[in-house]
């Protein structure tokens, strides 16, 4: 009797520990958190020319404070734009309708997130509303391309300042 008691105690402790560890892994090391029922929220959409590598689940922040998450990213084949649906916490329900949404990068190599900047309108965003002012993701390659293009152009200008008719040839 005594022996089975210790045995059961040991088994029970082990199984409990194991499940506690599993629970810890699924709730604490992931971004799931303990939210079994999601808090009250409302969805807002925004269309971007380019979302870069923005991912579903990326944070939506305002003044650096997380107020929601990206729940879906879709492509609008009529306007050729990316449609991003953001789920915002209902606590933050006083965001002006003319706020603008931009895609930023966390750190130099971090993931992308959406930053909202408040506008000046008196009306506030509601569920299923649309943010009109957006700024696309900052794509490093495009920027480098532009810098290089500018660089070669200004170099070409400096070499032939007195002969503007030579320019079209250079541009080829």
């Amino acid at each position, binding site marked *: 009797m005594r022996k089975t008691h210790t045995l059961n105690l040991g088994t029970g402790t082990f199984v409990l520990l194991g499940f506690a560890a599993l629970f810890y892994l699924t709730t604490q090391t992931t971004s799931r958190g303990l939210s079994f029922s999601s808090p009250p929220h409302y969805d807002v959409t925004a269309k971007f020319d380019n979302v870069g590598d923005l991912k579903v689940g990326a944070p939506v922040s305002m003044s650096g404070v997380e107020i929601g998450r990206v729940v879906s990213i879709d492509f609008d084949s009529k306007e050729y734009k990316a449609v991003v649906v953001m789920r915002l916490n209902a606590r933050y329900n006083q965001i002006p309708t003319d706020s603008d949404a931009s895609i930023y990068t966390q750190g130099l190599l971090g*993931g992308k997130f959406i930053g909202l900047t408040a506008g000046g309108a008196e009306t506030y965003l509601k569920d299923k509303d649309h943010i009109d002012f957006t700024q696309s993701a900052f794509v490093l390659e495009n920027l480098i391309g532009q810098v290089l293009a500018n660089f070669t152009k200004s170099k070409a200008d400096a070499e032939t300042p007195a002969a503007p008719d030579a320019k079209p040839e250079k541009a080829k």
Partner: protein
Amino acid sequence: MLRDAWQSMVEALVTLGDVVRFLVRLLVQTPSAFLRFNLISQQIYNSGALSLVIIMLSGLFVGMVLGLQGYQLLQRFGSEEALGTAAAIGLVKELAPVVTALLFAGRAGTALASELGLMRATDQLAAMEMMAVDPIRRVVVPRFLGGVIAMPLLSAIFSVIGIYGAQLVGVQIMRVDAGSFWSQMRASVGLSDITEGIVKSCIFGVACSLIAVYEGYYATPTAEGVGLATTRTVVTSAVVILFLDYLITAAFL
């Protein structure tokens, strides 16, 4: 030469088929084995609870080494904050299931194989058959199921302790910022990573337990045979674990 190779290939296939048939026999008996849960719970204790100390210690040191190595590597790129992510992903997806399974094969698998082998050598299994008690149902299935249940739990414990080990070295000793250590981990570890780890450890649990009980059950009933069965359990388990690990990782990509 060629004939020998052919012969050994055929033998390997025969063994594989035998193992699979043995697995089917075990699985057929599994539902009824749950009716006598006491037997399974005792085996969970033998395979799981008694392996706890070695698993926890190894997890701590593996995590600490990850912390050190990861810090040294990430520091070169100026992104020490990613240490939490690196340690958590490495542990949850790869190190915890594999190292746990290898330790399990060494600690619990050998115990299972030698116990069953000795039962075979001392004719205990034959005696059960004489008494119309199916040894597979009474002895083998509970041991198999105990291992299968214990493995994912051990692996999860390994992961958690390992993450704390990495945190211990990274945050307490190397002074990585604690906030970014945890928040970057939370931001980049997905539920799919954890599922992958759990699936791996479940499959390893089946493989390790199956190999151990098969080798033990069919051990040559001599002192030498039992020893051989134990050795083969560890060797086969190790190879099978690493092979399956590659397959599962490729399947999850």
